[in-house]
């Protein structure tokens, strides 16, 4: 299923519902559905914050494709190039005073999804493809 959303934080709840609806026919556990919703929420938040640099600057095209033993999720935006290597690595084994917010979303996406691939094309923009293998 494919749907286009405005790049605003208010639509995150709708994106979550769309993810759940898209995988309704696949036999996923409640825990897997929640994890997919979380990964997509973090990816969409990163698009608004880092690719568009603010709310209301562009659209987010989301595709969720359940297949045998996996779910393929693609997010596309036309914002600034996003290079995951520019994001500082998230570190949790430090005292609480030293913890930084930046990188937590990306860390989570990698922890949840089995494949994460960012691509930037000058004409098309950013495309993030994520695959979750379902046991």
């Amino acid at each position, binding site marked *: 299923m494919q749907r286009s959303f405005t790049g605003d934080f208010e639509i995150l709840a709708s994106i979550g519902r769309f993810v759940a609806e898209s995988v309704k026919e696949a036999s996923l556990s409640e825990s897997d559905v929640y994890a997919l919703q979380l990964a997509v929420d973090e990816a969409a938040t990163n698009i608004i914050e880092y690719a568009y640099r603010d709310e209301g600057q562009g659209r987010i095209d989301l595709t969720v494709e359940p297949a045998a033993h996996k779910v393929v999720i693609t997010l596309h935006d036309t914002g600034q190039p996003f290079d995951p290597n520019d994001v500082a690595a998230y570190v949790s084994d430090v005292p609480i005073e030293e913890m930084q917010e930046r990188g*937590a979303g990306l860390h989570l996406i990698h922890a949840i999804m089995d494949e994460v691939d960012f691509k930037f094309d000058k004409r098309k923009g950013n495309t993030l493809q994520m695959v979750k293998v379902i046991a």
Partner: protein
Amino acid sequence: MEINSTELKRCDLIEVSGRVDSATADELMAAINAIQDDGRYKIVLDLGGLDFMASKGWWTLIQAQKASKRYNRGEVLLANVPKMIKENLDLVGISKLFRLFDDPVEAVGSF
């Protein structure tokens, strides 16, 4: 998201339900700040009604914990954390920053 705050004798109890994400986390932060700005740093967050919490929400909890623990003036305790939210708190190593309680009454009593 819904937030209900109650000032108790030993601490403040904040019940949070619904969804905490980038659209709503600021509202939760404001509710916690209002209590801390009033000089009360012992806080129990009852998360039993939460459906969803993104990393923005966890970061709100971390900021609250930092402010409460400064100068040993208090602590933020988490109660009733839903299973799926707890699993994801573990993924980013955040649950170890909080004492977790199954029952908010037990959390309140620990102060």
